[in-house]
């Protein structure tokens, strides 16, 4: 699950309150998918150039909440690759230069086709929070017990066996 926590401006975390100038090279590439999200959730189409205040209102209206990866990917379907960076200018600059030289996966989200649906995977092993211009994503770990699905499948078989025993040996 991916939880959208809100805009950096909304966040109580000081690290995410800083604005990112719209002159960064990745900015344009990210704008498209975000605007597409806005359209798909039925909110007004608003340019990120309008600033964080407008964006915040939009997010308050439509976005906060938890979405499944496929649901989020449906909204972001037009993006083939989403780059996610920290909001710190220095960090963004550093990440940009790192990206040029190597495949740095810490802050990179990828869309891939899984079982016929597009799925976004946000990879940031050392951190759980990052920002995509405005949006903050929190990748919630799947809390389901790893053996639950297997046990659930097996329970039918065991109940069947017990009914068999009960039928033969029961009261």
């Amino acid at each position, binding site marked *: *699950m991916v939880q959208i926590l809100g805009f950096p401006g909304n966040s109580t975390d000081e690290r995410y309150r800083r604005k990112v100038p719209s002159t960064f090279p990745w900015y344009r590439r990210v704008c498209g998918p975000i605007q597409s999200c806005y359209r798909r959730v039925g909110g007004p189409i608003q340019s990120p150039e309008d600033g964080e205040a407008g964006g915040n209102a939009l997010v308050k209206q439509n976005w906060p909440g938890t979405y499944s990866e496929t649901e989020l990917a449906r909204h972001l379907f037009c993006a083939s690759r989403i780059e996610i960076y920290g909001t710190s200018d220095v960090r963004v600059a550093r990440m940009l230069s790192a990206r040029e030289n190597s495949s740095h996966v810490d802050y990179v989200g990828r869309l891939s086709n899984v079982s016929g649906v597009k799925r976004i995977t946000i990879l940031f092993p050392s951190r759980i929070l990052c920002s995509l211009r405005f949006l903050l994503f929190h990748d919630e770990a*799947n*809390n*389901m*017990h790893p*053996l*639950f699905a*297997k*046990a*659930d499948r*097996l*329970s039918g*078989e*065991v*109940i069947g*066996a*017990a*009914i*068999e*025993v*009960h039928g*033969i*040996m*029961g*009261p």
Partner: protein
Amino acid sequence: MLESIYERCLLRELELRGIPVLNQEEIAIDYKGTVFKEKLKFDLLADGCLLVELKAIQDVLPIHKAQLLSYMKLLNVPLGLLLNFHELMLVDGLSRLVLPGANQP
């Protein structure tokens, strides 16, 4: 009839269906820095993921469910079945217990 008989029969039935079953396991318990090993005896653990507790009693009491839940917790097993064979219809004596939070995505 004795629970142990039902247990042996169910064990055989699961064996015929190719489901691996255990009825005891040694676990390591860590309590505030003290680690000790304890051998747990339970009725059936199917394929390491489903704990089955068999009963042949008039009424299933909350204590029986509590017992199964504690075994599930100790063994970290997500699902448990409490089967009371002392019922005309087995479905009436069937309880399905889920370890809290184990089925939350």
